[in-house]
């Protein structure tokens, strides 16, 4: 029992390590906390790529969190904050990139590929369905006789 308790305590104390990137911010408005969470999830850390800035322990991510907090306090809206980041770090910092000529392939590429796949499949299926009707399965009289013979023979055996 004691051993289990010790294990549980150890496990619980380690659980805290997984959430290392915690800052203490006091938000003036309740909605700001939610927006802060949203923005830091949507913006990507420029240093430790593939982490959002909410998640990252890099000093730059901490700076950016501080900056977002400051801008929220100034009453800036989400778009202004995102523009601020994109102006400095480029489209790269957005996990949801804006729809522009450059990013159109990114947005529509997968859908386009899926569509192309569906078209190819439909064409193939249609062709197969049409194929039997052109008489390729009908046998000549000789062939049919031979088929009957073979089948009869089989049943005789």
């Amino acid at each position, binding site marked *: 029992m004691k051993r289990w308790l010790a294990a549980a305590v150890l496990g619980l104390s380690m659980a805290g390590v997984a959430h290392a990137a915690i800052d203490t911010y006091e938000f003036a408005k309740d909605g700001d906390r939610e927006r802060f969470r949203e923005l830091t999830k949507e913006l990507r850390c420029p240093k430790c790529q593939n982490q959002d800035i909410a998640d990252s322990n890099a*000093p730059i991510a901490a*700076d950016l969190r501080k900056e977002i907090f400051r801008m929220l306090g100034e009453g800036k809206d989400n778009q202004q904050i995102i523009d601020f980041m994109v102006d*400095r770090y*480029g489209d*790269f910092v957005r996990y949801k990139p804006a729809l522009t000529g450059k990013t159109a392939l990114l947005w529509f590429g997968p859908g386009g590929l899926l569509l192309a796949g569906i078209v190819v499949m439909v064409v193939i299926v249609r062709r197969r369905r049409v194929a039997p009707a052109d008489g390729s399965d009908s046998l000549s009289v000789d062939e049919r006789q031979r088929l009957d013979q073979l089948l009869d023979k089989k049943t005789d055996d």
Partner: protein
Amino acid sequence: MKRWLMVLPLAVFLVMAVFLYRGLYLDPAELPSAMIGKPFPAFSLPTVQGDKTLTQADLQGKPALVNVWGTWCISCRVEHPVLNKLAEQGVVIYGINYKDDNAAALKWLAEFHNPYQLDIRDEDGNLGLNLGVYGAPETFFIDAKGVIRDKYVGVIDEVVWREQLAAKYQALVDEAKP
């Protein structure tokens, strides 16, 4: 028509193979800077030496390198002798001491020689943030009007300078000549 369709998968495969092969040699840490073509962000910061206040206007007049560094940055130490050598050759370099302990920065500059014509003290990292700095060392190329024309992330060593950067700097110098 049918024949043409038969080579289509091969063609698609070849195109993908070329792109993926190229992708093997791309460095994902190298981000295109959003700042290229924009004027150097406005700032008003003291020098590392503490003798005066600098603004973006102080960086105008000559094409120059603006090097972001810190004593906490290990690769900056590798880069420093190269910058010293470049400064000796007459390359104009300004330094931004980024998020650093000022006493440590002064000691560093005294110990390893100061290649910077101006030393900007960006203790809070605000200027670095406005420049889109995400690590050090980073080096910006500005023209005589103070517009950012290029950026290099990482250590400038002699090979990088000779093969990539010298020509860019020279182009800015040539452009500034009447």
